């Protein structure tokens, strides 16, 4: 791990890819879970969103991929508004998500799951079944390609969820708690992979409770509490923030 590399990447002036401005999101009308959140993700950046259970992280992710309506505020991706845009058009525009809890299609094989990842880029009658890039990224998936995804281990399911999201060839990758419930060795593998993707130019918005690992690979970070951003800054400076250390890093 080279901490200066993250700093170097953020110093270059980059165009804004995702702009979230004062958005309010709710499951039930009148009860906002996310109220007035603003954040930016610049092209090529890894941005981390920290927060405890119930802070509104997953709600925000769901709003970003069109699963929940935005009650007010602005949501812009690459200069185009995402307000009222359906999930199918959002993934086609270039935002793919690795959902919380992995959510692989358990009755589909590994290869079929990968094919579904490319659904937004489908042409012809059926998939081509050539998933070399996914298998190169996670060789384990190649060994298991005909196995039902429901029979994979948690770590393998996380690899599959990531590979599936990448099949959409996104420009922005949303990762919701990718390390949840995984053994330390697998957490390292997942974060190494995110770091590798970032090195190759992928823009990432990472939601995590595992703040140490997340801040290590992130350029910038936001802290979400009770539905609002309470702190933001460069990952390195947040790592040294005493309050963050106390609340999220267990120091």
């Amino acid at each position, binding site marked *: 791990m080279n901490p200066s590399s993250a700093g170097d990447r953020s110093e270059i002036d980059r165009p804004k890819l995702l702009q979230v401005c004062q958005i309010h999101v709710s499951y039930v009308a009148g009860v906002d879970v996310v109220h007035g959140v603003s954040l930016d993700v610049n092209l090529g950046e890894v941005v981390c969103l920290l927060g405890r259970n119930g802070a509104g992280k997953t709600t925000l992710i769901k709003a970003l991929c069109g699963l929940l309506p935005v009650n007010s505020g602005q949501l812009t991706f690459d200069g185009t508004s995402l307000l009222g845009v359906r*999930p199918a058009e959002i993934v*086609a525009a270039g935002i793919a998500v690795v959902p919380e809890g992995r959510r692989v299609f358990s009755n*589909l094989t590994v290869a*079929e799951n990968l094919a579904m990842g490319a659904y937004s880029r489908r042409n012809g009658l*059926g998939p081509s079944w050539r998933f070399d890039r996914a298998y190169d990224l996670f060789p384990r998936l190649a060994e298991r390609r005909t196995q039902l995804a429901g029979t994979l281990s948690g770590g393998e399911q996380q690899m599959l969820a990531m590979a599936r999201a990448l099949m959409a060839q996104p420009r922005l990758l949303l990762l919701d708690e990718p390390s949840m419930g995984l053994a330390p060795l697998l957490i390292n593998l997942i974060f190494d992979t995110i770091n590798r993707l970032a090195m190759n130019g992928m823009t990432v918005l990472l939601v995590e409770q595992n703040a140490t690992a997340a801040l290590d690979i992130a350029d910038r970070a936001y802290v979400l509490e009770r539905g609002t951003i309470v702190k933001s800054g460069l990952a390195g400076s947040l790592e040294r923030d005493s309050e963050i250390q106390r609340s999220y890093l267990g120091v």
Partner: protein
Amino acid sequence: MNFSLQLLSGLAVGCIYSLVAVGFSMVYRAMGLVNFAQGDLMMIGAFIGYSIIVNLPGLPFWLVVPLAAAITACLGYAVAQSALWPAMQRGASQTYLVLLTLGIGIILSNGARLVWGANPLVYPIPLTHETLRIWDYPVPAVYPFIALTMVALIAGLNVLFTRTWIGLSLRAAADDAQTASVMGVNHRLASAISFALAAGIGAAAGVLYAPITFVSADMGMIGIKAFAAAVLGSLGSIPGSVIGGFVIGIGETLGGQLVSSEYQDSLAFLLMIGILLIKPTGLMGRKG
């Protein structure tokens, strides 16, 4: 002896139950509901087949089947889009959804009575009366049609569900609708297509069944036995539904022969209860 003839007839009627049961399982997987209108959609298919035969007398029987299936599939699509989806969107509970499908079934069977009359109809084609000789036994000439359609439909469904975008998206949406929608699958459309496919398959079964019986508005009662077949094979499993259909079909025919044909219907349900007592999740069920 009589046994092989009975076995053939059990296989044939088993195919019919299987196809209707597959429809139950598809809708259950895709929409999470038990569609008690499935049998009535089969009945409508049989009547549509009758109208096609009457209005297009020259049309070969092997074309009547897909045509009636396609028309019934359109009807199924309309039912899913106009009645079931809005109810599901508003969060109707399983009980109300089941009642809704029962209601749709009643509308369909009474509608059929209005359109085609209350008297049972017979397909006015030679196939209804023709017999083939197999091992010197007379066998209804429609049996080869039933067998071929069954094989073609199951093979076609397999290709559809494992090789095509549309089939994969239906399975993905059935597995996890929200995640599938993030991949770009339209859940509403996927549900309606699954329902339409199930209706079309049911209609094919109805048209194939008509020559060995007659077409009436009460024909949908077969749906109850097909439901038993789907349940004993594990509701939601397509291979299970096929196997369940054969178990019920062969079981009731041979059992009826051994005991008395009056008990044929009871035997179908006895089989279901017996199998579920031994394996509560059904033949293809998983643990837990």
